[in-house]
C-alpha cells in the first residue's frame, strides 16, 4: 500500500527532529548522569522505531533497533563508555538522518547498510557488560566500575601529583618516548583515577528481592520502597553502600519488623515497611534506611553488654548514641545464638568499617514501637568540573580553569601567568589577556582563543596544594590549572 506523500514527508520532518533530540540527550548522558535525559533518549528512540516501521522506512527501523541496543548497553554501564562506542552512536544517528531523507523503497546508492550494521554488532559484542575487555584504552580512558587494584588513600594523594607530572611529560614528548610516557601516565591513571559507578534504584533492587526472601523465611511480610535519586559516585562508595544497605536491610527484617500477628496487635499493618531514600547532597552521599518495626530494643542491648563483661553501672550510664556505638563494635549482638540470618554480630561492624574507611559516618535513631532509622553519610568527590577551557600557545593540551574563577572583561590584572613557561614548555607570551577573578584575587592568562564554558570529568583528583589535575574534556585529556597556586 502506498502511503500519502504528505504523511511520508511529515515523518521525515519529525524523524529529523527526533534525531536531533536523541543526539542532544546522548551528549547530556555522556557528560553527566541525568535521569531526565536518559528517559528522553530511550523514549525518543523507541518512538522513532515504531514510527519508522509504520511508515515503511525499514532501513531507519533496522538502524533504530541497533541504536536501541547500543543505548541499552550504555545504560547498563552507567553511560560510562569509551570513545569508539560514542562515535558509533553518533554515526548511527547520522546514518538514520541520511536514510530518513531517501525515498521509501529507493535504492541505497553507495550506502553500505549491512556493513554498517556489522560495525555496530562488533561494537555491541565488545561492549556488553559481561564481554571480555579486549580493547585497551587508546588516548582516553574508559570509565571503569571495577577491576583496578585498590590503592590506599594515603598513597593516592602522593601518586596523583606524580600522575599529573607524568601526563604533562607524555603530552610534551614525541616518538617512542611519547609512547613510553603515555603508558606510564595511563598506568598511574588506571591505578589511582576515579572509578565511576552509578547508584540508583536499579542497583538496589536486589535488596528488595533479598528482603522479601528473608521475610518469607521468618514468616514476616514486608514492602520495600525506594526514594533514591540516581547519582554518579565512585566505585568504592558504591561498594560501601552495597555492604551497608545489605546488612541494614537484613537487620531491619530480622530485628526490626515484627511478625504479622504482633503488628496487628500493635495496631499496625501486618506488612512491615522498609524505606531506602537518599542521594548526593552538598558533596556527600546520604542514604537513610528506615523501618516501621519495633525500634531498637535498648534494654536488650544493655543486658547483652553486661553479659559481655561491661559493668552494670557503666552500661546504665550509656545513652542511646553510645549504645548504638556499642552495637557497632565487632562481635556485639543481642542474639545469644547465631542463626543463618543474623546474630553473628558482624553486620553493623561491617557496615561501620566500610563507611568509616571512606571518611563517612553511620548514625541511627529509634522510636520505641515505631521503628528505627539508620543513616549512612559518605563524602563524595565532585566527579564533574564546570569551568572555562583555554588554548594557550606552546601547550599541547587544553587548559581548564574552574568556574569558581570568573572572567572579567576589559580589566587588568596585577599578576599575569604564563602557563606554558610555568609548566616548562617554550612559552610565547602571545595571545589575548584574559583576566580571572576569585575572592578578590585577579590573575591574567594569555590565551589564543576566547575561553569557552565546559563540563569536564575529573580523572585524577590531586590535593589542593598541587598545581592542577587532569580532566576529561569531551574525550580529550586537559589540564585543570589551579590559578591560586601560581
Amino acid at each position, binding site marked *: 500500500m502506498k502511503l500519502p506523500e504528505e504523511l511520508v514527508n511529515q515523518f521525515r520532518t519529525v524523524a529529523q527532529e527526533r534525531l536531533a533530540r536523541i543526539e542532544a540527550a546522548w551528549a547530556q548522558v555522556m557528560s553527566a548522569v541525568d535521569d531526565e535525559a536518559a528517559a528522553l533518549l530511550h523514549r525518543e528512540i523507541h518512538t522513532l522505531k515504531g514510527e519508522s516501521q509504520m511508515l515503511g522506512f525499514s532501513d531507519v527501523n533496522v538502524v533504530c533497533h541497533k541504536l536501541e541496543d547500543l543505548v541499552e548497553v550504555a545504560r547498563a554501564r552507567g553511560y560510562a563508555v569509551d570513545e*569508539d562506542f560514542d562515535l558509533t552512536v553518533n*554515526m548511527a544517528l547520522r546514518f538514520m538522518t541520511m536514510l530518513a531523507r531517501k525515498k521509501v523503497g529507493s535504492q541505497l546508492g553507495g550506502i553500505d547498510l549491512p*556493513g554498517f550494521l556489522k560495525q555496530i554488532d562488533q561494537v555491541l559484542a565488545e561492549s556488553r557488560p559481561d564481554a571480555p575487555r579486549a580493547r585497551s584504552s587508546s588516548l582516553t580512558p574508559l570509565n571503569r566500575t571495577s577491576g583496578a587494584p585498590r590503592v590506599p588513600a594515603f598513597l593516592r594523594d602522593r601518586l596523583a601529583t606524580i600522575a599529573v607530572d607524568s601526563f604533562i611529560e607524555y603530552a610534551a614528548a614525541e616518538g617512542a618516548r611519547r609512547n613510553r610516557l603515555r603508558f606510564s601516565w595511563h598506568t598511574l591513571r588506571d591505578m589511582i583515577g576515579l572509578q565511576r559507578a552509578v547508584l540508583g534504584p536499579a542497583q538496589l533492587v536486589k535488596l528488595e528481592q533479598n528482603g522479601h526472601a528473608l521475610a518469607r523465611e521468618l514468616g514476616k511480610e514486608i514492602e520495600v520502597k525506594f526514594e533514591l535519586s540516581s547519582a554518579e559516585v565512585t566505585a568504592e562508595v558504591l561498594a560501601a553502600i552495597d555492604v551497608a544497605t545489605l546488612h541494614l536491610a537484613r537487620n531491619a527484617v530480622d530485628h526490626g519488623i515484627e511478625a504479622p500477628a504482633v503488628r496487628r496487635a500493635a495496631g499496625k499493618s501486618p506488612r512491615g515497611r522498609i524505606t531506602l531514600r537518599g542521594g548526593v547532597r552538598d558533596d556527600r552521599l546520604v542514604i537513610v534506611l528506615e523501618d516501621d518495626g519495633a525500634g531498637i530494643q535498648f534494654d536488650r542491648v544493655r543486658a547483652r553488654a553486661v553479659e559481655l563483661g561491661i559493668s552494670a553501672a557503666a552500661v546504665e550510664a550509656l545513652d542511646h548514641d553510645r549504645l548504638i556505638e556499642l552495637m557497632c563494635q565487632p562481635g556485639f549482638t543481642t542474639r545469644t545464638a547465631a542463626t543463618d540470618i543474623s546474630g553473628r554480630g558482624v553486620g553493623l561492624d561491617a557496615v561501620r568499617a566500610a563507611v568509616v574507611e571512606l571518611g563517612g559516618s553511620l548514625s541511627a535513631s529509634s522510636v520505641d514501637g515505631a521503628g528505627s532509622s539508620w543513616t549512612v553519610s559518605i563524602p563524595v568527590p565532585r566527579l564533574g568540573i564546570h569551568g572555562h577551557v583555554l*588554548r594557550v600557545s606552546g601547550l599541547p593540551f587544553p587548559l581548564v580553569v574552574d568556574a569558581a574563577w570568573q572572567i572579567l572583561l576589559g580589566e587588568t590584572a596585577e599578576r599575569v601567568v604564563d602557563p606554558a613557561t610555568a609548566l616548562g614548555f617554550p612559552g610565547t607570551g602571545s595571545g589575548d589577556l584574559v583576566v580571572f577573578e576569585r575572592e578578590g584575587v585577579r590573575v591574567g592568562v594569555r590565551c589564543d*582563543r576566547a575561553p569557552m564554558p565546559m563540563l569536564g570529568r575529573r580523572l585524577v583528583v590531586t590535593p589542593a596544594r598541587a598545581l592542577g589535575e587532569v580532566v576529561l574534556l569531551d574525550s580529550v585529556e586537559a589540564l585543570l590549572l589551579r590559578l591560586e597556586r601560581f
Partner: protein
Amino acid sequence: MAAVPPIRDPGFTAEVTGEAPARLVLRGNADIQARTSLTALVDTLHAHLVERAARVVIVDLAALEFMNASSFNVLVGWLALIQELPPEQRYRLVFRSNARIPWQTRSLRTLTCFAIDLVEIEGG
C-alpha cells in the same frame, strides 16, 4: 593552497596542499574545539574543489592522533555535501590512515559505509 586558510591551533593543525589532487593534512588531536574551524575549512575546500572540477582529494590522517565524535561528524557532513552534488560533479575522498593509531581503522571503516562509492582508504 592559498584559497583555503589553514588551521594552526595548539594541539591540532589542518592544511591543504597541492592542487591535482589537493591534499588535506590533519595533525594532532581534533577535539570539540576543532569542530568549528574544521567545518569552515571543509566548506571552503569543498567549494574550491567543485569550482576546480576536482575528481579526488587526499585526506591525510597519518599524524592525526585522535578525533572525537563531534569532529568526525564533520567528515560525515563533508560526504553529505558531496552526495548533494550532481553525479558528474562528485569527487572521491581518499583517506590515508595510520595503522598504529587504533581509532582510525574502525572509524574509517564506518565512514566508508556512508558512501562506498565516494570513500577510499589507504594504509591502516
